[in-house]
């Protein structure tokens, strides 16, 4: 959420600034304090109310929000406009700015309108009907989109709360992500899609790399912003859609394609390919589906829909137009346990390998690091 601007402090000591502590709420008392504050600040500029028409005429003087405006909000605004202007009519206000001959001009205009009305109305009627039909179609499409968005939302899972409880186990700590962040040395304008709690942004900051996170969850975005991290509250796909072609020099994402609809992954990769500069670096860290530790962590996360095999991700990246895509294991939060499991069984497996060739490789895969890292170039 954006930072709220501080209230302007006016008036000096005589003005009571209303602060309510932990004491029991007494609304009558609060209202009395508000009354006193208003009386003591009589004539303050905030208390001057302007008519709506005047405000509208002047337009907003305060700086407009830099907040990202998503496509649904754009659609809602356009629909508001469309509804306002759909009803085409000849009954607009008639007048004239001329002082002396003004009334006469207005009279002529009124007479002209009266004479032309039957002809204009015939055309307007068709236009109104067309507008009505078109508006209805757009409204219906809007409803369909809203319905799908509501259905695809992951319900009431509070991601911030969830990640605070389980995150360090599998999501990667700031320390663990340091290695991934260091890959971006020399790149400016790094964007992280889906910043989560901001561990990667923190790691990048420690490595001296400037990065901006894109996060669709308001709580997570607010948590990042509170820590001074640069995060834009926006759905990553919406953000990519609105970014100009070849404008992003480097991108990082975790758990790419593991949430949302299956087709979102293909779409995101195609979008990324279009929005990344030539030679841009893309790094992704996902959960490894063949690793017990990777799968276990994924099953614990109620918002994860699927795991993406590293070879599949590399294949899709290449298909989307990325070059040199390759993957390697990357330690997850439970790497200590994974290491222990590998070492503990090493001796026994060496013995078993004689009778069951391949068992060592299978065990190694099973106890492999929970994550994998894919590095690709555009």
């Amino acid at each position: 959420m954006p930072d709220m601007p501080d209230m302007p402090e006016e008036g000096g000591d005589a003005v009571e600034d209303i602060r309510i502590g932990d004491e029991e709420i007494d609304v009558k008392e609060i209202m009395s304090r508000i009354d006193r504050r208003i009386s003591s600040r009589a004539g303050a500029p905030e208390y001057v109310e302007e008519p709506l028409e005047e405000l509208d005429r002047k337009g907003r003087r305060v700086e407009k929000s830099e907040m990202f405006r998503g496509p649904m909000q754009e659609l809602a605004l356009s629909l508001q406009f469309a509804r306002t202007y759909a009803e085409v009519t000849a009954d607009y206000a008639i007048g004239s700015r001329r002082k002396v001959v003004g009334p006469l001009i207005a009279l002529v205009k009124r007479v002209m309108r009266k004479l032309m009305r039957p002809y204009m109305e015939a055309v307007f009627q068709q236009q109104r009907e067309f507008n009505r039909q078109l508006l209805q179609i757009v409204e219906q499409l809007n409803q369909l989109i809203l319905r799908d968005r509501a259905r695809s939302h992951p319900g009431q899972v509070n991601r911030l709360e969830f990640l605070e409880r389980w995150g360090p186990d599998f999501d990667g700590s700031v320390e663990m992500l340091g290695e991934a962040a260091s890959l971006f040395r020399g790149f400016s304008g790094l964007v992280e899609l889906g910043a989560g709690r901001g561990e990667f942004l923190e790691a990048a900051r420690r490595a001296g790399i400037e990065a901006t996170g894109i996060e669709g969850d308001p709580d997570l975005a607010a948590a990042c912003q509170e820590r001074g991290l640069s995060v834009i509250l926006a759905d990553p796909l919406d953000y990519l859609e609105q970014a100009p072609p070849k404008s992003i020099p480097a991108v990082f994402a975790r758990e790419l394609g593991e949430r949302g609809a299956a087709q979102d992954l293909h779409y995101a990769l195609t979008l990324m390919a279009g929005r990344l500069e030539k030679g841009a670096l893309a790094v992704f860290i996902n959960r490894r589906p063949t690793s017990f530790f990777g799968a276990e962590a994924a099953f614990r996360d109620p918002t994860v829909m699927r795991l993406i095999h590293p070879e599949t991700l590399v294949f899709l990246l290449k298909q989307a137009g990325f070059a040199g895509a390759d993957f390697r294991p990357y330690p997850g939060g439970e790497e200590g346990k994974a290491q222990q499991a590998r070492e503990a069984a090493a001796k026994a497996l060496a013995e078993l390998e004689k009778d069951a060739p391949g068992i060592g490789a299978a065990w190694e895969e099973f106890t492999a690091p929970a994550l994998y890292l894919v590095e690709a170039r555009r």
Partner: protein
Amino acid sequence: MGGVPHGTIAFVPLRYGDEVVGGAETLARNLAEELHRRGWPVEIITTCALDPYTWEDHFPPGEEYIRGIKVTRFPVRGRVRTKRRVFLLERSINEGRRVSRRKQEYWISNVTFSEGLYRFLEEHREDYRAFIFTPYLFGTTYTGMRIARERGLVIPCLHDEPYARLEIFREMMRRARGILFNSEPEMELARRLYGEDIRGMVVGMGFDDFSGDAERFRAKFDLQGDMILYCGRRERAKNTPLLLRYFCNYLERSGRDLKLVLTGAGEVSTPYAYQEHIVDLGYVSERDKLDAYSAASVLVHPSVNESFSIIVLEAWLAGTPCLVHGRCAVNRHHVERSQGGLWFEDWPHFYECLDLLLRDRALARRMGEEGRSYVLENYSWDRVIENFERALDEFGL
């Protein structure tokens, strides 16, 4: 028509159905459904109307069952405002001018009329334990109450408005076997208007607790950042133009980045320069409405004419503080009793109150919690049904 089970209570709202939006109608529907759930024999006698502006027949006449409750509908003749005489009479009433009793009768007979419904009431008056009409301001209620006589109760949903001062309504209220009020201030208003000795009791409406999903709402409608909410009809009588004016002034004076989200029926005339900040969602589903309460920082209810304010009580259930108009006796009563919000009567108070609620998040949250406790304590269904039973006993029904 089959036999009417012994002791059946008939609700007679002007409109009935899931698609119907309106305070009195929602109240009647919820109360009837709760009584039905608890095993009371309940029926609905209503008209075919849906649209409160045209009063055209929308639903087919006849019988249907909605969630197990029998609903009988009759064609309605709408408000004949197009008749010049009715229009002029209405204007005179609104301006508070003296209108003769005969003219009042003429006017009310043109404010919805259902011959079929009246005939049904005549024929089946003895079959029902009580008829509960709502709201007061319609021909079906006025004429229906006369037909139902000693079995007629009314949930008036009374506002302090010129109509309420008409002689015909004074007589209706005084003759009623009983009046079921939604709140104490509404009952006080009725006593002031119609006399201390009217037979009335506060019953209200119960609320089921719910859990709104703010994130779902934000994700669905792509809304980010702070938002204040208005739910309900958008019209002059509900003071929505005032809300728009104050809100735009607030944006200018405070410099805050804030949105006003509106849901409900009716046109919203959004100033061009503020399009980005005023989001009109129109009619939304019940689920979206409940989620919207949770997503809002503050619910603003600028109407001065309310008899109950379902919206305010629902917002409190979601833990959202409310900013209400101080001249609305009912809302102010709720806020003073609950400690769940603040009130304004002019622009400086609107500015200061809204600013305080947006600036002091801890206070806003605590007010929301106080409001929630108030609703759970005073408007549980157990309590409301208990009030209802006591009222019937009191009225000897």
